[in-house]
């Protein structure tokens, strides 16, 4: 039984007369055909044992990003070198607490987003609006929700029950971070996993709600190709830019335009996930680029009106919008940006004030109204603004560059230590090429332009953009619109080859755009593994970066590879909140292919995935708290995640010790005996130093205990091949992954055999156990 809220606009009874009354009553969760599993709506401690199993195998390596804790007024406490704070906390607990804080923020953000979305969609479509993410093709519509909560949601209203649960859990998680609560780092880490699990449930709520109501592609491998890149934006039209993650206001913009015949006369484009979700709604909308494109696009002056909703929006957006005289509309109470709330005012008044520049912007918390205002303001203001910009022409870039004193102050604040002074020196001589080359590795943070940094008042980021005009004009690419879920039938087709290892792995490129170098590293990696016939999934900013690339035939990876969940497919699931379709695919393999019970049976399913589904996440530019909670949702399922170098700032890794044989035993569910499975997967969370290293880690982390000899040989083939390509030699740990001679790739037999001999390798007596970490799943015992 769960509680729900009921709202009455006006209630009149004999006893009370009230307006806008809201109260809670108990609600019976609807029963459904599947028998309930052991852990419906698990609390913060339910999976402690499972988490500890994983954390025994994958030990945290902590990387203090700051030696001090300053959370309470006892502080600051220096926790370095074994010291404890005034509250008794040590550094490991402090760092794991910080990870928990980050993941709780991430989960809360998605959950808050989902709640807001569900409320808005219920208001528009009704409580009984059915959920449909893929019709007949997707019977298992909500794998994370069913697995964790035991609820099978059928209508929008059912999602409220799910969110009630998630909100409760997030409150407990956050409260564990208070001074004088949890003190053990491993127990903190277990809570981190809980936050991740809740996060995937919350994201799933948000995405299935919007897919079901807005007519987004429904598990469609042939979702349309849409345009991405700054060069796609038609500047001759009034341009509306949307930024953020909550799509309803952008949908209203598109609807208003459609209803008023303005679809072809106004350009709507977006940055971040609102852009992705808008293109799932309207293929006329365009994507500017990932989060790192905010400053450069706003300053380019292309946008006549900027509409922001929530998450990953530059918090100086009012200032930046003002610099180019573009009015700003905030549509979310989480993000007022200091603007006056004009929700109650007439559209005419708001439009007039914005067009006449009486106010820099307004907050309008009614999506429909915000949509109308945005369109009307864009139409009226575009001729006045004349695309006013602050990005200089090339001649001005050259003049500015001459002022550089080579003090390196800008370099020392640049997250990627870009060689700005060297590029400016060349620019001062008229060669803009080196400066424009920085464009791809610049994450657009604007730190090099901070007050008081440059003694010559140069604005390096702006000059980089100014030097890149031609590059920007050519930025015209194609991306497949987010397709949402994976079909049940697709899972049926690939379940067996994945579990046996014959499809070498599922690689998910997800997360933000805080890349350590050029964004092209993401499409390069994605293309490599697609060519190798892995199943490559993607979401969010990574999905955009993959699109912003052309191969030797001038095609984007989305044009080159099919969008189906199959070997060699490149599947864009959608925005950040579409990530649960990826974890959901792993869950569905256990449920649909292996027929494991799904409903509230998390531990068993996670055990299945960890030991059998060769999936790995790559968040090459992860920056946010949401990215950390998304990763932790994969960790609890036992799925490894690789991050780029900046990901080391998440403060801890989860590393296996392949040299510790004892750590890699599983239970053979057939006999109940323990069996050595080798270090698969070797790590649960690791930051790679370079793209090349990540590309060697990916095939390695796709190996699983369940691989058949054929499957293992295929996986080893990719691992050895990439290791040789990038590291010039055979990996020196191959012997740990070869269980029997049949595991060795045929073409590599001689050299691998030589290495095995050198390492004193012995054949594994039980190379193909039925692997589990859960004694209760041993069949011999239960049968006996």
């Amino acid at each position: 039984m769960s509680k729900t809220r009921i709202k009455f606009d006006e209630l009149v009874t004999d006893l009370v007369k009230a307006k806008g009354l809201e109260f809670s009553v108990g609600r019976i969760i609807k029963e459904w055909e599947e028998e309930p599993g052991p852990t419906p709506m698990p609390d913060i401690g339910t999976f402690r044992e499972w988490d500890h199993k994983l954390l025994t195998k994958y030990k945290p390596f902590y990387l203090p990003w700051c030696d001090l804790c300053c959370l309470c007024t006892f502080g600051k406490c220096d926790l370095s070198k074994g010291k404890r704070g005034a509250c008794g906390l040590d550094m490991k607990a402090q760092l794991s607490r910080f990870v928990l804080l980050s993941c709780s923020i991430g989960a809360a953000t998605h959950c808050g987003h989902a709640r807001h979305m569900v409320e808005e969609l219920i208001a528009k479509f009704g409580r009984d609006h059915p959920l449909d993410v893929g019709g007949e093709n997707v019977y298992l519509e909500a794998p994370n929700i069913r697995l964790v909560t035991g609820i099978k949601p059928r209508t929008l209203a059912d999602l409220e029950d799910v969110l009630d649960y998630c909100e409760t859990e997030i409150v407990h998680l956050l409260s564990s971070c208070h001074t004088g609560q949890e003190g053990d780092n491993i127990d903190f880490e277990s809570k981190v996993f809980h936050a991740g699990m809740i996060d995937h449930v919350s994201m799933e709520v948000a995405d299935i709600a919007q897919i079901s109501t807005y007519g987004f592609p429904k598990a469609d491998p042939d979702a349309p190709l849409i345009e991405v890149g700054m060069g796609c934006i038609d500047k001759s039209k009034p341009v509306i830019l949307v930024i953020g993650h909550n799509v309803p206001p952008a949908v209203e913009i598109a609807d208003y335009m459609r209803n008023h015949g303005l679809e072809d006369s106004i350009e709507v484009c977006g940055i971040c996930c609102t852009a992705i979700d808008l293109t799932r709604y309207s293929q006329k909308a365009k994507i500017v680029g990932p989060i790192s494109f905010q400053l450069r696009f706003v300053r380019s002056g292309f946008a006549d009106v900027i509409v922001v909703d929530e998450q990953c929006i530059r918090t100086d957006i009012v200032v930046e919008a003002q610099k180019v005289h573009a009015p700003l509309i905030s549509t979310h109470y989480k993000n007022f940006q200091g603007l006056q709330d004009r929700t109650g005012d007439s559209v005419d008044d708001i439009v007039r004030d914005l067009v006449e520049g009486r106010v820099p912007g307004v907050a309008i918390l009614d999506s429909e109204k915000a949509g109308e205002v945005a369109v009307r303001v864009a139409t009226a203001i575009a001729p006045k603004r004349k695309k006013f910009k602050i990005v200089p022409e090339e001649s001005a870039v050259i003049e500015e560059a001459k002022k550089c004193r080579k003090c390196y102050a800008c370099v020392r604040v640049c997250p990627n230590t870009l060689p700005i002074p060297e590029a400016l020196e060349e620019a001062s001589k008229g060669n803009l090429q080196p400066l424009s080359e920085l464009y791809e590795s610049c994450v657009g943070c604007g730190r090099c332009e901070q007050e008081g940094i440059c003694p010559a008042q140069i604005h390096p980021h702006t000059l980089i953009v100014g030097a890149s005009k031609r590059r920007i004009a050519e930025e015209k690419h194609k991306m497949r619109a987010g397709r949402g879920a994976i079909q049940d039938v697709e899972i049926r087709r690939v379940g067996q080859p994945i579990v046996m290892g014959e499809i070498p792995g599922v690689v998910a490129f997800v997360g933000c755009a805080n890349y350590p170098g050029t964004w092209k590293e993401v499409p390069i990696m994605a293309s490599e593994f697609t060519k190798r016939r892995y199943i490559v999934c993607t979401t969010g900013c990574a999905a955009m970066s993959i699109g912003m690339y052309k191969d030797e035939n001038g095609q984007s990876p989305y044009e080159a590879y099919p969008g189906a969940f199959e070997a060699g497919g490149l599947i864009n699931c959608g925005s950040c909140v579409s990530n649960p379709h990826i974890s959901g695919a792993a869950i569905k393999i256990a449920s649909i292919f292996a027929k494991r019970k799904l409903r509230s049976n998390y531990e068993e399913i996670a055990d299945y995935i960890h030991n059998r589904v060769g999936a790995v996440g790559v968040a090459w530019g992860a920056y946010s708290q949401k990215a950390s909670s998304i990763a932790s949702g994969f960790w609890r399922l036992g799925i490894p995640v690789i991050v780029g170098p900046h990901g080391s700032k998440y403060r801890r890794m989860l590393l296996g010790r392949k040299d510790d044989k004892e750590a890699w035993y599983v239970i053979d569910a057939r006999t109940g005996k323990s069996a050595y499975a080798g270090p698969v997967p070797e790590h649960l969370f690791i930051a790679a130093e370079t793209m090349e290293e990540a590309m060697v880690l990916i095939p390695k982390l796709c190996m699983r205990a369940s691989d058949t000899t054929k499957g293992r040989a295929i996986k080893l083939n990719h691992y050895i091949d990439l290791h040789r390509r990038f590291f010039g030699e055979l990996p020196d740990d191959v012997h740990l992954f070869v269980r029997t001679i049949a595991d060795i790739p045929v073409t590599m037999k001689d050299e691998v055999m030589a290495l095995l001999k050198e390492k004193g390798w012995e054949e594994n007596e039980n190379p193909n156990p039925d692997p589990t970490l859960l004694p209760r799943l041993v069949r011999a015992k239960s049968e006996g």
Partner: protein
Amino acid sequence: MAFEPWQRGEIPGPIKAVVINKPEMVPALVKKAKKPLFIVGTGALRDEFNGKFPIDYAIRIAKGGNIPVVATAQTVVEFKRRGFTPTARMSLMEIGGRLTDPEWSVSDNGAPHDLVLMLGLGPYYMEWLVGSGLKSFAPHLKTISLNRFYQPHCSWSFPNLPVEEWYKNLEKIAQGMEKK
């Protein structure tokens, strides 16, 4: 230059690296150590100066002091191109994690390490973080950064140096290690 982190925001805490004023200190420290280890990363392949790269000095230092080398990421390729085979290739996070185990050694059955030299461990901030991890969780170790820029979490580090001065220091350290 002042003893401050190269990336301005990377302020550590109260305990900071002792600055290497005289490069001769480094061979002396290495010679005193029982089981030194040298980790060299892809940063050693950047900052060319007069046709040399930091990795060239890494090889001389390692050979001179007979120090086992762990190469991270693809650094191994450049070592081999120069005719030098590192003791092991590991990822930076892996070797960092391993070193928090006071029993672990890169060579089988070897004594655990008591001193770690670092050069070019990825981008500046990655070496910074690994240094920090070792400072707090590998109390059995001392660490020396041979990076061009100050690494405050190591036991010893150069201050931020102009490239030519850095190379002079690397040369002096190599010579010191090569002296029998």
